[in-house]
């Protein structure tokens, strides 16, 4: 399964704080997106994967619902407050030093993958290997269903899971994979599949 992207958005009215947070986040290896006004969200309309919004505490209440709606196709959105007055474990406080801020951000980022521990990439099941073999031999979903005595619906669902696990969608790609992993032999494949 593909690694999900982490997007970090910095939403603050203070240019100085934006600059500071920008360079701190950059050191983690993620280039953050700077948001100065609500309008700026429209410059980044299609963020997917995980989104962490580091937001000035006075902006949170008025904007949270809008941001969640704006990025509704993202996997998960989390908000981390930036505060001038409150210290707290998750909250980034104005007087925190840069390594403390980095720790707090790292923690928010790692909590994204905790949420998805069940979705880690796994090996193909024996049944999925049966299905893959037939896909590589050029069988249609219906033919696969008939030869394995399963419903077409089940066959399609197996194929979907295979593609998700391998990161390969097309029939030609799946055929290549089956050959590389010696699930089938080159001489058995339907070369039209590679088109």
């Amino acid at each position: 399964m593909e690694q999900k992207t982490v997007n970090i958005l910095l939403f603050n009215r203070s240019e100085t704080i934006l600059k500071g947070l920008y360079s701190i986040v950059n050191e983690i290896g993620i280039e953050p997106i700077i948001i100065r006004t609500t309008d700026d969200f429209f410059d980044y309309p299609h963020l997917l994967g995980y989104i962490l919004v580091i937001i000035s505490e006075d902006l949170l209440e008025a904007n949270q619902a809008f941001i969640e709606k704006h990025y509704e196709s993202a996997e998960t959105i989390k908000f981390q407050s930036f505060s001038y007055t409150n210290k707290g474990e998750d909250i980034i406080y104005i007087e925190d030093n840069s390594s403390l801020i980095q720790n707090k951000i790292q923690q928010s980022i790692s909590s994204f993958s905790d949420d998805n521990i069940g979705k880690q990439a796994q090996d193909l099941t024996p049944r999925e290997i049966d299905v893959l073999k037939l896909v590589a031999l050029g069988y249609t979903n219906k033919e696969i269903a008939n030869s394995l005595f399963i419903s077409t619906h089940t066959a399609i669902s197996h194929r979907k899971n295979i593609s998700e696990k391998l990161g390969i969608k097309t029939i030609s790609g799946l055929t290549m994979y089956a050959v590389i992993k010696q699930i089938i032999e080159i001489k058995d494949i339907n070369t039209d599949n590679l088109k």
Partner: protein
Amino acid sequence: MSIFNSQHKIVEIIEHDCDLLPVLHRFGIKLGFGDISVAKACEQYNIDPDFFLAIINVYHSENYFPEHKFSNFKIADIINYLIATHGYYKNYILPEIEKRFNAIIAQNSSHNEILQLLEKMFVAFKNEYNKHIENEEKKIFPLILDLSENKVMSDTIKKKVSDLHLNNTHSQLDDKIIDIKNILIKYLPPFDDANSCNTFAISIFRFEKDLKDHARIEERILYPRVKGFLNQSID
């Protein structure tokens, strides 16, 4: 996240992101920039600076895509840019990748059969992509230009454009190149000549990124405009 503006020098932009060189070339801007700014370069090469900046910023920052700013660009500018990009793929990148494929096959004695199969998959992609390009340039783009220039349109043209199914083809084509990339980096057995395989993988990566960008410009900038024209003409 640097969003470039018209005061930036071309040379600064390239120092920041040299992958933009072929993009500049599509606008006719070639190496040897001197200290010219974006504003001056656009004046000199007769380019709409807003369009130029939108294209390079969208290319440079994967997530930057201010659709609401795209509605004023000239259709002819967009189409010229897309055609220049097609030319780059068709005459340079695709043949180049194929050449590299052949070189790797010649240099690696092990697993040659698998490489040859993968090349077959690539050649199939290439042929299909070239067909896609030809269809756009010969059929779709001229229709769109007609549509944008003639305020009064015949029903036949309108019908033709709305029959085009503009959004379908890219994602399937993109799936193919993504699969080739994933097979290359995740599943291929190790090869004798790792360096040439790495160079090859990098060129596939760049191409895939370029294609994604290209598809976004067609599907999110050009086609919504076409739909807009169609709706207008119905009113």
